């Protein structure tokens, strides 16, 4: 039995969603998706449709986040939560290798890269863009073996955004809210009518088609496609925030002494939350963990942040001792020098850094403040 064609569009009834989940498992995937835990919509294992945040939504703000009940029973009626998908491709802690002494020398064993094939269910457009950003980081140049292995067995099931949060600005960053054809293995649009709760399913890749084998589908009606387009268009027009990105690279690179860096540093806790909540921040540190006998040592990698002193520890101490210099480094890298390094912005407009900053520092506000008072960007900006 073969699945539908790549590029084809179908309707999936809400009642058939359990069959869809079962098909993912039957095709060898462990499903990870949104679930309600600790008063938030986080990502976790999904075994049954009841594991999804049925009838819940979220209200992310600057330094605040609350979940609340919806009037309907939407499965994906929320924005983005505290977690990002990066922990499934780039774990917060990862053993890289183990070395053991033998009689005359030592042996290094790299960490095996096998593991379960994950299906990420409910990936938003901004999150797909974030995975693409991290692909350029981890797969460009010298590919990271663990990331590559996990990425190769990954299935991305996107869900179009039916709403935008107060902290959303994907339209400004050009990453959403619509999921481009073929940007994901499958793209779902959730449609809720008084008489009918169903999904438009767009097939983006052959693997996306394969996992639909045996799932009850019906060809998409023109009205369904139009309703889905209208939903995404409405979301696009209701972004809670905007960021003017014109000339942003030079705007920031030319402003190392702007007084705004000191202003934001008076609020910034240098607590690392923004960077670790960010779906694209990729910095890590490594540490060797030896046994007391010294016969065996493990090298571990863990998420690090440019907001720590140790991040720039050199022979003479930390190179970025002031919080102003650390915030400037983060924002300038994220929005400006990322373009030089990876050919895109490091920001996808998801708003997590705004929400999960304990004091609600808002990068869109910081950029606007710098733009309001800084000199105009010039083409002669130093590279």
């Amino acid at each position, binding site marked *: 039995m073969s699945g539908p064609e790549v590029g084809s569009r179908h309707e999936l009834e809400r009642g058939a969603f359990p069959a869809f989940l079962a098909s993912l498992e039957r095709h060898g995937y462990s499903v990870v998706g949104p679930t309600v835990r*600790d008063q938030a919509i986080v990502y976790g294992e999904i075994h049954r449709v009841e594991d999804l945040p049925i009838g819940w939504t979220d209200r992310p703000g600057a330094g*605040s986040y609350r979940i609340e009940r919806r009037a309907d029973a939407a499965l994906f009626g929320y924005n983005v939560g*505290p977690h990002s998908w990066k922990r499934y491709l780039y774990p917060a802690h990862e053993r890289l290798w183990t070395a053991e002494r033998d009689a005359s020398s030592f042996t290094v064993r790299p960490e095996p890269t096998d593991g379960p094939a994950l299906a990420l269910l409910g990936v938003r457009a901004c999150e797909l863009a974030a995975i693409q950003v991290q692909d350029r980081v981890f797969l460009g140049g010298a590919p990271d073996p663990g990331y590559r292995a996990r990425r190769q067995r990954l299935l991305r099931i996107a869900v179009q955004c039916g709403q935008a949060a107060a902290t959303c600005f994907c339209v400004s960053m050009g990453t959403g809210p619509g999921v481009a054809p073929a940007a994901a293995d499958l793209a779902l649009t959730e449609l809720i009518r008084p008489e009918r709760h169903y999904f438009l399913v767009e097939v983006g890749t052959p693997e996306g088609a394969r996992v639909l084998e045996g799932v009850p589908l019906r060809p998409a009606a023109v009205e369904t496609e139009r309703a889905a387009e209208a939903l995404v268009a409405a979301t696009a027009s209701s972004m809670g925030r905007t960021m003017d990105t014109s000339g942003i690279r030079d705007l920031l690179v030319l402003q190392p002494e702007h007084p705004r860096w000191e*202003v934001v540093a*008076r*609020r910034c806790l*240098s607590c690392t*939350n923004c960077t670790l909540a960010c779906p694209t921040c990729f910095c890590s540190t490594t540490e060797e963990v030896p046994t007391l006998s010294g016969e065996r040592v493990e090298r571990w990698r863990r998420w690090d942040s440019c907001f*720590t002193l140790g991040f720039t520890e050199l022979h003479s101490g930390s190179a970025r001792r002031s919080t102003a210099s650390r915030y400037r480094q983060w924002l300038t890298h994220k929005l400006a020098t990322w373009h030089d390094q990876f050919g895109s912005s490091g920001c996808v407009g998801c708003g997590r850094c705004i929400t999960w900053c304990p004091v609600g520092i808002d990068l869109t506000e910081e950029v606007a*403040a710098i733009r309001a008072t800084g000199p105009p960007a010039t083409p002669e900006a130093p590279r």
Partner: protein
Amino acid sequence: MPRSPRPKLAVWKFASCDGCQLSVLDLEDDLLALAGAVEIANFREASSAVVDGPYDLSLVEGSVTTEEDARRIREVRAESRILVTIGACATSGGIQALRNFADVKEFARVVYARPEYVRTLATSTAIREHVPVDLELRGCPVNKAQLLEVVSAYLGDRSPNLPTESVCASCKRRGTVCVMVARGTPCLGPVTQSGCGALCPAYDRGCYGCFGPAETPNLPSMVRRLDELGVDAAARVRLFRTFNAGDPLFREAANASAPPAEAR
């Protein structure tokens, strides 16, 4: 390279609850490895068999609260090649540093039937205020893995890996939902040093600050945020005056009048 075949380890107790020393005994399987790697020469909590000093590595628990202890810590220092203080009592005076803000004679009158038998100092102070300290290991209690890391680093003649970043970094790595952002729960995590593995937020509680201030804590901003969350001055004193009440930065945060709202 390891130093002498089996370096001599001593564990000392000053004013404390013994919880940090118990963390040594609580190393379980690693305790056997520890006993193999070092000679446990003086550890009264574990054994009454004591080998005379000098000692290669001394772990000091507790704060200085008596004249006798102030004298004894100088002796311990004199016979210790490396002296590491372990736990909030030893590194900032502990919960008993609450006496630093009160009349200790009054306390003694209330608590003891015969207060004249009690000879105590008016303050509880960190070990480093009395003798030079080679390394401070924070926490109430200390973290077992960090304790082992200190000994391991000593044996390997390397710097121990003891991050001084905030508790938030640990919360984010383990995927804990921020209790301050998602619930409005006052939490000292953003200004507290990691090391506990972000235990309390994982159980829906705000951080109590057991590990003392993080590397570059922005306490004025933290105080402002607590104020916005409804933590009034009296509640803020209780929040900052726990196990690290004697820490100068936490003391200042407890006493600060709420700073005015920052201009954006």
